C-alpha cells in the first residue's frame, strides 16, 4: 500500500523560502498565513540550521484524534485532510499538533478562525466541492518538494523517501570516513 510522507534533510535546507512561495503559488494561500514556513535556529552561531515546518501527515495524527467535530480525516494513503465546512474553529487541532501545522489565518477575511493546514497539495486553500458535496482533491504532488532548491525536502511514497535519505546518509558517512 502506498503511504505518503515528508522528510526534511536539515543538512540541505538553506532557508531560501522556495517552499513557502511554491506552496502559496500552487494552493493560492493568501497573504497573512502559510502552510509551510522555514524555522531558523541557533541563528548566527555554529549549529545554525533551518527546518521547514508543515503538516507532516502523521501516522497517528493527533489533530485527527483531537478534532471534536470530525472535520479532520486521514486518507488511505496517509494524507491527513480537513473539511473547512465542518471546522468550527476551536483551534484544538493546532494545540494537538507537535509541528504547529494547523493555523488560524487570522489576517485573511472570511477565514480568520477556520483552521488551515498543509494537504500534500491535494486541496487548495479555498476548497471546492463537487455536485455530490465531496471536496475536489488533486493528485498528491507537493510543490514544496518538487520546487525545493537543494532537494532538502523529500516527499512521496514512504519507502522511496527513506531510501533516498538512507543513501544520502550512507554516502555522507562513507565519505567522512574516507576523508578522515
Amino acid at each position, binding site marked *: 500500500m502506498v503511504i505518503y510522507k515528508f522528510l526534511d534533510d536539515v543538512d540541505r535546507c538553506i532557508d531560501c523560502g522556495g517552499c513557502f512561495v511554491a506552496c502559496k503559488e500552487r494552493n493560492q494561500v493568501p497573504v497573512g498565513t502559510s502552510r509551510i514556513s522555514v524555522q531558523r535556529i541557533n541563528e548566527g552561531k555554529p549549529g*545554525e540550521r533551518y527546518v521547514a515546518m508543515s503538516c507532516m501527515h502523521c501516522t497517528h495524527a493527533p489533530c485527527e484524534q483531537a478534532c471534536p467535530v470530525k472535520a479532520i480525516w486521514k486518507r488511505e494513503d496517509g494524507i491527513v485532510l480537513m473539511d473547512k465546512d465542518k471546522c468550527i474553529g476551536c483551534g484544538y487541532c493546532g494545540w494537538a499538533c507537535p509541528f504547529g501545522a494547523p493555523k488560524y489565518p487570522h489576517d485573511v477575511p472570511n477565514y480568520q478562525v477556520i483552521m488551515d493546514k498543509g494537504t500534500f497539495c491535494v486541496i487548495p486553500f479555498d476548497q471546492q466541492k463537487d455536485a455530490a458535496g465531496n471536496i475536489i482533491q488533486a493528485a498528491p504532488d507537493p510543490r514544496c518538494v518538487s520546487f525545493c532548491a537543494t532537494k532538502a525536502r523529500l516527499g512521496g511514497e514512504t519507502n522511496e523517501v527513506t531510501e533516498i535519505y538512507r543513501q544520502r546518509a550512507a554516502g555522507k558517512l562513507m565519505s567522512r570516513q574516507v576523508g578522515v
Partner: protein
Amino acid sequence: MATKGNLIGSDIRMSRRTFTKLSAVGTAAALSGISGVSAYPSKLGDLIEPASAAPSPGVSFVRSICANCSVGCGFYGKVENGVFTGMEPWMTHPINAGGMCSKGAATRETTVSERRLKSPMKKVGGKWVKISWDEALDTIATKMAEARSTSGPDSVMFLGSAKMDNEECYIYRKLAAFWGTNNVDHQARICHSTTVQGLANTWGFGAETNNVNDMRHSKCLFFIGSNAAEAHPVAMQHFLIAQDRGAKWIVADPRYTKTASKADIFARFRPGTDIALLLGIINVIVNNDWHDKEFIKNRTIGFEDLWEVAKDYTPEVAEDITWVPADTIRNIARTLYENKPSSVYWAMGQTQHTVGSNNIHLDAILQLVLGHAARSGGGCQALRGHDNVQGSTDMCLLAHLLPSYYGLSEKGRKHWCDVWGISYEEMQSRFESDEFMHKKGFTVARWYEGVIMPESQIDQPHNIKVCLVWGEALNSVTMMKRQNEALDKLDLLVIVNPRSSPAAALPTRSDGIILLPACTSFEKEGSVTTTGRQVQWRHKIIDPLWESRSDFVIYQQLAAKLEEKTGLAFKKYFTYSRMEDVWPELRAGMLVIGMRQDPERLKRQQEHDTSFDRDTLWSDALQEYWGLPWPCWNDKHCGTPILYDASKSVHKGGHDFRVKWGNTVPENKWGKHVGESMLREDYPVPQYGYGYDTAEIERALADNEPPTARGKARIWIWTFVDPIPIHREPIESPRPDLVDKYPTYDDVPFQYRVPAPYISNQRARRDIVNEYPTVLTTGRQVEHMGGGAQTRGTKWLAELQPDMYVEINPKLASRIGVSTHKIGITDEYVWVETLRGKCKVKAYVTEAVNEQTAFMPWHWAGWFEGKSYEDRYPPGTAEYVLGDSCNIICVDGYDIHTQMQETKVCQCKIYKA
C-alpha cells in the same frame, strides 16, 4: 507558443479583458506597506476567460528560464487561454532539477503583478500623466536630438541592464555605438567588472571557469565573499552534493552567513582584507612546500614575483590585518592542499572593493599555486548576479569595450563596423571626435558626476543632458545623494522598466521624466547566459501585458524615431523581425569568445533535456554539453564547460590558457620578464577574431589545438598597478596604523572621464574610526533581487521578507539601547550614519556579525534618510514594502582598474532613532 511573425505592431495584442479583471482584484485588495499586509483572495480559476470568449488554445506548458540570479533554473509556465496561470517544476532540467528559490517560485506572481507599470507615463507639473507610446518615443528622440546638436553625442548616457536577453543587450550596445558615444554601461560594472579584469588578465577569459554542476566534483569548496545560500540558492544543490560526497567547506566572510552554517571551517575576517588573508594562505602553502611545482613551471609565469610579496605575509601578519587567527589560516591552507581539487567561490564580497581586481587576481593565483586550476572540480567560480549578466557582459554593454570584449581601439572599431556593414569613417563621424571614439565613457558607478560636475572638471566637453535608465536599479549605485542631484538636473530622464522602479520616484523634479513600460522576460523570448557561460533559450510564456512592449521592440521603434529626428541612418541597422535574426551578427562578430551557438541547437537541447548527465552536463545523444558553454567554436562544437582544461580533446571541450598579450612578454614599466615566452608549445598561434574568417579556427581544431593557443597564465600581470596583489587598506579603515603601512592607490586625474581621488580621501579620513567606529558591509537577502523593485513589489516575497534592517551584534545593541531579549529582527529603529548621510532602519540583533561590524541588505528603496517618498511613485506602482537604501551611505571608493564601487566596507556609527 509559436513565435510571432512580426513582433512590431503586434506587441500589445493580449487578452486584455482577463487582465483587467485580474488587476481589479489586485487593486481592491492591494497590500499597503509593512503593517497593513491584507489579504488577496484570488481565485485564479474565476479569472480565466471562459472558453467562449476567444478561440481556446487550451492549456499549454512553456519551457522558460528563471529571471533572477545567474544559475539559470528552468521551469514550465502553465498557460490557459493566454493567461499565465501557474508554474510547474522542470524536474528534468539539468541544472536545477525542478528546484527554485523563493524569487523563482514567485515568477508568475511577479509577472502578472498589479504593481507593474502599465502604460507610458510622463511627469507634468508634479503629476504623473499617461501618454501614448508614440508621444513618449517622439519626446525622447526629440530631446536626444536636441542634446546632440547643442552638447554633442556624449551628452546622452545609456544605462542598460543585465536583465535583458543577449540579443537585446547587443542591440542596445550597438545603438549606443551608432549614436556615437561610449557613455554606455550597465550593472555588470558594479557587479563583476573586477572579476573580468582580474581573471581575463590572468588567463585569458573573464568568466567563471567551470559551472555549478561541475562543483559536484570538487573536494574542497572555498567561499570567500560569496553567500551562495542567499545569492545563488539553487547552485547550493550541487555544492551540497559535493559535501555529501565528502568535500570540505571553508567559508571566509565578515558575517556568519547561511552559507557559513554549512561550513567545516569558518573564518570571520575584516571587510576589505581579502588580499592579506589570501596571501597569508599562500604563504603557508609555499612555506610547507604544498604548491604544485610542475603546474607552476609548465603553465604559469611570475611565481617568484609572487613569493617576493607573499613571503612577508606570514599568518601572524595576516592575523593582525584580518582578525583571522593564524592557526585558522594554517588550517585553511592545509585543508585546501589536502583536498584536491579545491575551488574558489566569490561574488560581490570580493569584487566590490577598491582592490577588487587584485582580489580576483589573487583568487586565480591561489588556484594556480595549488595546481587546482583548469580542471574539473577546481578553478575559479565567479558567481554572477543577474540572470543574464554573463551575457550582457559578453555583449559588452560597457563603457570601455565593444561586444565580445573588443577594445575601443581602431582595430576593434573596424571589426564591428565590418560586422554592422557601416564604414569606419561614417561611424567616426557620429562621434564627438576621433579621440572620443576611443576614450572610455562614463560608467554606472559615477555617471552622475558627468551631470553635476562643472564641465571644466570632467574629461568630456559637455555635461550629460539626457539619461536613459534602461532596466538599471539606481538604488544599487552608491552616492545616492549626488545621484539624486544629477537626476534633478538632467534635461530628460527616461526610465524603461516593467516596474516604475525607485528611479522614477527618487528625483524631486516636477517635469522631464518619461517612463516606458517594458515587458518582463516571460513576455518575450530570447537567449540568456548562465554564470557558467551556458546559453539557454527562454521561450515566451505570454504576450506582453497591458501596454508593455519588449525591449527588442522598443529599441527598433526608438531607432526609427532617432533617424527621423537626427537625420542619421538608424533604421537599416536596426530592423529585426525575430530574436533569431540577431544571431548571424553575433556569430560573425563574436569569434573571440567563440559565441557561435545557434538558437535552433539551444532549443533542440531543451527537447532532449533528459539525455544530459547531471554531473558532467554531457549528452551522449546530442554529443554536446548543456547550454553549449562558450567558447563554442563552430556549428558542430560541443561547447567548453571547463575553461583551460588541457586534459580533454578540444573536440570534447578541451582548452588551454589563452594568450591575449602576444607570444612573448613585451617591454613593461617594471622591466621584468621581457622576452619570456607566453606559450608552452611551438604551435603557431591562430590569428582569428577580426573579420569573418573562421579558417584559422578550423585549422586549429583540425590539429586538435584550441584556437586560443596553449599559453601560460600570468601570476605577474605587467599591465596592472600592482602586478602582484598587495594589501591596501580600504578608503575608510578602522586601523589608522595600517592605513599608514598599507596605503591605498595614488589619486588618478581621470578615470572613466572623472577625477578619482584615492590616497587623498584615505588620508583625510585616517582617524575616522574615532567618530565612526563600526565597519559597515552590505549584501543580499535571498527573498529579494537587485534593486528590489520587482521582488518588493511581489506580494509573497514582500510578505516573506518585509524588512530593511541593519544586523548588529547583541553587545553593540545593548550598548546603543536596543533590546536584546530576542535574537532576530526587532521593531526598534536605529540610524546608521556615515560621512555621506544616514539611514533609518530596523535593528536586527544577531551574533552573525561581530561587535565591530554591521551589515545591511541593499535591495531597498522608497525611503530616503528616514523619509518615505512613496507619494512620488506613479499611483499604484510603489512596491508593497519600502525601506531606506544603504547606498545612500556607502563609501565613495572605486576599483583602480574598472571603477567598481566599494560597497562592502566603510565606517559608520549606529544609534537609536
